[in-house]
Structure formats: structure tokens, C-alpha cells
């Protein structure tokens, strides 16, 4: 039994303050990249994170921010990166998806498990601006590794789509 004023839950809520540097509206908790939090001692904690994409350049910054935030609470954090099981957009929280849409990025439209990407039958992506489903993909590769570029044929805006993996 470790006597600490911090619990797994209290640390999770602290981590809500760490945001993805490329999509500041999302916290690392919303994004689903915090895989575990283990209170290892009265003033020590281990945080397990997983990258969205193998080459995601935001991981180093995220690790640094987690350590700094917890240090301000008197906690020394060890941040461990694990790649298995692989991150999936299914782990993004419902709040996270709403925040993304309000920010102008269409959230992942489907659970990856239905394999529609592989079979080529895409579910419609909703325009985050005018909410029309009359949208089309411009490119599967966008401004960051996790996004695709879409165009809305109703309001004619171009928008980012957080693609399913």
C-alpha cells in the first residue's frame, strides 16, 4: 500500500491539462494516448503513453509537458512509451470528438473495426463547418500524419479530417 495523496484518477484529471501541441484543443487524455498511470510512491508516478503514428513529432514535447506538469505538483514522473497494442482512433473520447469538430477538424467518422477503409466503402465525412455530408476527399495525407484533406461541396470549404487508423 503506497501512501500518496495522489491517485490514478487524480493524475488522469491533471493530465487533462496537457494538450497535443499540434491540435491544442485536444488533451492527451481525449486523444487516448495515455495508456496507464501507476502511482509508484508518495512522490513518484509512471505514465505510459503510446504514439498516434510512429513518426509523430509531438511525442517528445508531450513527454516533456507531462513531466513538467506533474513536477509542479511535487511528483517525479517516469514516462514510458509503448507501441503495443497500437493506438487507434477508437480510443479518442467522445468529448474529444466534439472538441475537434468545434475546432474545425472533422472527427474520425467510424470505428476502425468495420474495415471500410480497406474495402473502399467510406462512410460519409461530415463537414465541421456547415454539417453537410456532401464532402469529398482531396488527399489521404494532410497537414499532420493523422489528418486527411477534404472538401465540402455544400459550403465549398476545405477542411481537415482526423483519419481512422
Amino acid at each position, binding site marked *: 500500500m503506497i501512501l500518496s495523496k495522489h491517485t490514478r484518477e487524480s493524475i488522469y484529471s491533471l493530465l487533462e491539462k496537457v494538450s497535443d501541441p499540434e491540435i491544442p484543443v485536444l488533451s492527451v487524455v481525449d486523444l487516448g494516448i495515455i495508456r496507464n498511470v501507476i502511482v509508484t510512491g508518495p512522490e513518484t508516478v509512471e505514465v505510459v503513453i503510446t504514439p498516434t503514428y510512429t513518426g509523430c513529432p509531438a511525442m517528445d514535447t508531450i513527454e516533456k509537458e507531462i513531466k513538467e506538469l506533474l513536477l509542479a505538483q511535487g511528483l517525479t514522473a517516469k514516462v514510458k512509451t509503448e507501441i*503495443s497494442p*497500437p493506438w487507434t482512433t477508437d480510443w479518442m473520447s467522445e468529448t474529444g470528438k466534439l472538441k475537434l469538430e468545434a475546432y474545425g477538424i472533422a472527427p474520425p467518422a467510424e470505428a476502425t473495426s468495420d474495415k471500410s477503409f480497406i474495402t473502399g466503402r467510406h462512410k460519409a465525412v461530415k463537414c465541421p463547418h456547415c454539417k453537410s455530408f456532401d464532402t469529398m476527399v482531396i488527399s489521404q495525407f494532410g497537414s499532420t500524419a493523422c489528418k486527411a484533406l477534404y472538401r465540402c461541396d455544400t459550403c465549398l470549404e476545405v477542411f481537415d479530417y482526423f483519419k481512422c487508423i
Partner: protein
Amino acid sequence: MSRDQALIEYLIRLGDNALIIGQRLGEWCGHAHQLESDIALTNIALDNIGQCRLLLSEAGQIEGKNRTENDLAFFRDEKDFRNSLLVEQPNENFGHTILRQYFYDVFQFYLYSALKSSGNEFLSGFAAKSLKEVSYHRKLSSDWILRLGDGTSESHLKMVEALEYLWPFTFELFEMNEIDATLMAENWVPDLSEIEKKWLNEVEAHLSEATLEIPDTMGYKATGSRKGHHTEYLGFLLAEMQAVPRSMPGAKW
């Protein structure tokens, strides 16, 4: 050859492939025919560099001589690189780059699909993670093969030229040696001749849909990388990629 030694060599083989194709694709930054292609090629480069970092870090850790991913990427010479000759070939034009990418993407797709069920925990976790990214790469390059092969007479001609150039380099992707034998005995890696069958099935059907014919190389197959014998292009690529860390070793941002 010990199991660990074979695994280190295998990780370096996969890691060097990812590193060198990543560097080649990075050369397109700011030069593609449209912004979307520019962004796509550099995103694929980034995914490959990400893969390379995981693979070379793991190799360095198992080796236990304190060599980091950076030491392996920037302080080895040409003869120590184990990437396939295919990935070091110059970009030439967009069609040429896309064809090289297509061959590599389909290869990676089937290899990683098999490695997902590897008995080695790192390899299976790595493959499951990277396969998600590779599926997007393969979609992009196969779409372009159709558009360019079955496109205008100019684009078709460029693809025929690229195919003649690159086809002899494809055989080497599936070459096996003692490393493969050692790791296959552990059920850690697949038999590459099985991967080759799947690769060939897909590539033949797709090229034919793109109105492209596989050239007759009269038995010629490029080979050498498993022993560190490379084409003249790798040295120039490394010179550019390694210049900064070598002229200022230990420099930090």
C-alpha cells in the same frame, strides 16, 4: 549465428530500408507537381523515419554497446547498410518515385502482415503498429500507378521507362540468408518466398490493370545489399544525410 545476433541484423535490415526510403522521399519536399503530392510523399517519409527510429533503437538496445538510433543512422558507412538496392535508387521523376514506392509498399504490407503474428514481442507489436500506416501508403501509390500507367501517352511512357529501370531491383527484396534461417527457426520471421508469391500476385494484376507490362530482364537480377554491396547512389545519399552529425558530433538543438 546466435538468435540475438540474427535479430539485430534483421532489425537493421528493416530499419535501413525505412531510413533510406524516408530520406529519398524527403528529397521531394517542396518539389512535387502539386501540394497534395508533396505533402503525401513527405508524410510517408515521416512514417518511415518513425519506423526506422523504433527499429534501430531496438537493434541498439539488444546489441548492448550503447549505440543509439542516431549512432546507427549517422555513423555507419555504406558497406554497413543493409537496405535493399531498390530503396536507394534516385527519385528521377514523380512516376519513377511512385513505382519504387508501390513496390516497397506492397512488400511492406505483406511482410508486416506476416510479422504481426511473429513469436517475437517487439516484431509483432511493431508490425501491428506500422501496418496501419503502410495501408494508407499502399493505397496512395497503387492509385497513382493506375492514373499514370493508364493515363496520357506521356505518363504511360514514363511508367514504362521506370518499370524497365526498377523491375530488376525487386527480386532482392525477397532474398534470404542465414539471418532469415535462424529467425525462421524461432518462428519470429516469415519465409520471404511466401511473401514474394503474394507480392507478385498483387503487382502483376495491378500493373496489368494499369496497362503496364512486366519487362523481360533476361534473367538479370540486381543483388548485393545483404552483403553491404550497394549501387553508386547510396554513398551520395549518405554523404548528404550524415554530413551535419559527422561535422558536429554530439551537437544538440
